[in-house]
C-alpha cells in the first residue's frame, strides 16, 4: 500500500490572506493527503518545528506580502538545523518571476504563482513520492 503522504500548509509572516492556503489545504485533502494546517502569522521557526514534530513529507508555504525572500529561506534554514533536510519545500503566493531562481537556490523546490491549477501541486507531490516513500 502506498504511504499516506503528510503535508504541512503554513503561512509565515504577517499577512492574513489565507484564501489560497486554505484552498490548497482542502484540495490536498481531497487528493488523499493528510494536511497539517497551522494558521496565519506563524514564525519560520514555528513552521519548521511543527513540520519536524508532525514528520511531514512536504511543507507548502504561502505568502502574499512580499516577504518571501526573507522568510521562505529562513524556514529551510531552521529545518536544516533540526536535521530535517529531507522535507521537501514548495511555496506559493504573489511571487515575482525574478525571485523564483533565488528561492529555488535557497531550497524551495517549486514555486506556484497565482493562477496555478491545484493539479500542478498534486503532480509535484506525486513526482516526488519516491523520495518520501521510504521514511
Amino acid at each position, binding site marked *: 500500500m502506498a504511504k499516506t503522504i503528510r503535508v504541512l500548509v503554513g503561512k509565515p509572516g504577517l499577512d492574513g490572506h489565507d484564501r489560497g492556503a486554505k484552498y490548497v489545504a*482542502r484540495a490536498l485533502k481531497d487528493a488523499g493527503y493528510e494536511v497539517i494546517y497551522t494558521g496565519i502569522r506563524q514564525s519560520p521557526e514555528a513552521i519548521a518545528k511543527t513540520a519536524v514534530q508532525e514528520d511531514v513529507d512536504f511543507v507548502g508555504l504561502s505568502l502574499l506580502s512580499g516577504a518571501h525572500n526573507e522568510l521562505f529561506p529562513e524556514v529551510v534554514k531552521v529545518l536544516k538545523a533540526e536535521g530535517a533536510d529531507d522535507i521537501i519545500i514548495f511555496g506559493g503566493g504573489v511571487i515575482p518571476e525574478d525571485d523564483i531562481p533565488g528561492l529555488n537556490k535557497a531550497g524551495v523546490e517549486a514555486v506556484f504563482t*497565482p493562477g496555478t491549477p491545484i493539479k500542478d501541486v498534486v503532480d509535484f507531490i506525486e513526482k516526488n513520492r519516491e523520495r518520501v516513500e521510504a521514511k
Partner: protein
Amino acid sequence: MAEQKKIQDAQKAWQETTLKKVTDRFPERKENFTTGSWNPAERVALPGDLSEEAYLSKLGFPGEFPFTRGVQPTMYRGRFWTMRQYAGFGTAEESNERYKYLLNQGQTGLSVAFDLPTQIGYDSDDSHSVGEVGKVGVAIDTLKDMELLFDGIPLDKVSTSMTINAPAAVLLAFYIAVGEKQGVSKEQLRGTIQNDILKEYIARGTYIFPPTPSIRLITNIFDYCATDVPKWNTISISGYHIREAGSTAAQEVAFTLADGIEYVRAALKAGLDVDTFAGRLSFFFNAHNDLFEEVAKYRAARRIWATVMKEQFNAKSEKSQMLRFHTQTGGSTLTAQQSDNNIVRVAIQTLAAVMGGTQSLHTNSRDEALALPTEESVRIALRTQQIVAHESGVANTVDPLAGSYYVEGLTDTIEEEAWKYLDKIEDQGGMVQAIEKGYVQKEIQDAAYRAQKEIESGEQVVVGVNKFTIDEGAPTGLLKVDPALREVQMKKLAEVKASRNQADVDRTLAVLKEGAKDVEVNLMPLIVDAARTYATLGEICNVLRDEFGEYKESIIL
C-alpha cells in the same frame, strides 16, 4: 396585478412560439445561467410589482429613506465621487512623494496603506517584523514617521483614509498630533480610519486583542470623535476583505451589515445616543466583474441598512440611516497572466461602483497580482475613474439602472438572501458569537472553494488563466521594495528613542496602563498623550497587550 397577469400570459405565448422555434434549433450556450455569485440570471427579466406603493416603499427618491437610489438627491450631478487611491510603501518619505504625485494628478483624497507590522502593532525592530517592514505599505513607528508622511501636505486641505484596524486609535492619535504640529485643530481634520476589527477575525487577519477589549477601543473612538474630531469617519465597516476571502455578493452585504449591527449595539451599550455616532459610520465594499449583480448589491445594502437603523435602532436622523460607502475594485479578480487585461476588468468594476452610487473609489492597478503597483500603473487606474466620470456619461443621472427588470430583481434577491443570513446570525447570539463559532468563516470558505473548483474545471472562465492563454515572458518593470529598508527604519527609530524625553514616555504609558484596567475610562485621550511624547506604536500596543491579552486564530477549515 392585472397588468402582471397579462404580461405573464404574453410571456407564456412567447415561450411557446418565438422562443421555442429558436431554442429547438439553436440551444443556448449552457443550461443554467447564473451571476458571479450563483444567483439565477433569467433569460428575459420581467417587471416585478408594478404598483406605485411598491415603487415608493422599495425605491423612493435619492436622499430619502430607504436610500435604494442613493444617499444624496443629486449624486454625481453635484460632485463626482472621491477618487482615492490606496497607496503607501517603504518609508514615510517615499510614500509622501507618492501622495504628492497623486494629488498633482488630480486625486482628491489620500488613502494610506500601512505595512503589516504597523497594522499589527509591532515596531520595525520587533522580531515579528522581519521581512515585512515597508512591504505592503508604509512603516510607521512613531509620530516622527507620521510627520514625514504628511510633510508639506496641509491636513486641513485633504481628507485622509487610513487602512488601520487593531491599532486604529494609535494611528489616529499620531494624525491628530501631526495636525497640532501643523497648526490644524482636531475639529478641522477630515478622513476615515477603517477601525473594523470584526472582519479582521473573519477574513483579514491583522487583529491584536480579543473581541471585547477591541470593541471597547472602537466605542472609545466613537465617543471621543463625536466631540473632539467631529468630521472624522470613525469606522469603515468593511465587506471588501470578506469578498476577497471568497464570499458571495449577498454574504458580503450580510456579514458587513451584521458587523455594523454589532458595533451599533456596542456603542449603545456604552451609553452613546444612536444619532450622535451613527452618521459617522461608513462602509467599504468590493466591486467584482458581474456588473449588474454588483450594482444590485450596493442598492440592496443601502435599503437593508436604512431599515435596520430606522426600525431596529430607532435612529431619527436621516444621516444615521444612510449607508455611505467607499469601494475598491476586486483584488482577487486580477490575474497575473496577461496583466494588461486587468485594466479592462477594473473599468467594468468602476462602472459597477459608480452606477451603484459609491461615495469614493479606489481602482486597482493592472500589476497588483504581481507586486506593488508602479507609478504608471497607478496613473492608468486613476485615469480609468476619470474616463468613467468625464466621458462615459453614467454620472449624469442618478441610479441609472433603476427600473431595469433584471437589476431590480437581483436587488430583491440579494436583499432577501442577506436578511436570511442576518436572522441566522441573530439566532446565534450576534456576530461575535457567530465568528467565534466559525459559522461566518465556514460560509465564506465554502463559497471560495466552490468558485475555485469551478475555475479549475473551466466552468467559470477567467480570460488568460483557464482560457485564451498565451505563452508570455516574465513581466518586467515591477516595483521592488528595498530589502534593507528595515535597517533604515530601525536606525530612524533608534534616533527618535534617543532624542525623546523618556520620563514623559514612561509617565504617559503608565497612565494608559492604569486606564486600560478600568473599562469606564476612554483610552483615546491617553493614547493621544502618549503619541505626543514619541512613544512608539509598539510600546503603546504592548501596554494594551499586557492588559487585554492577544486574540488567537481558532477556526480550522
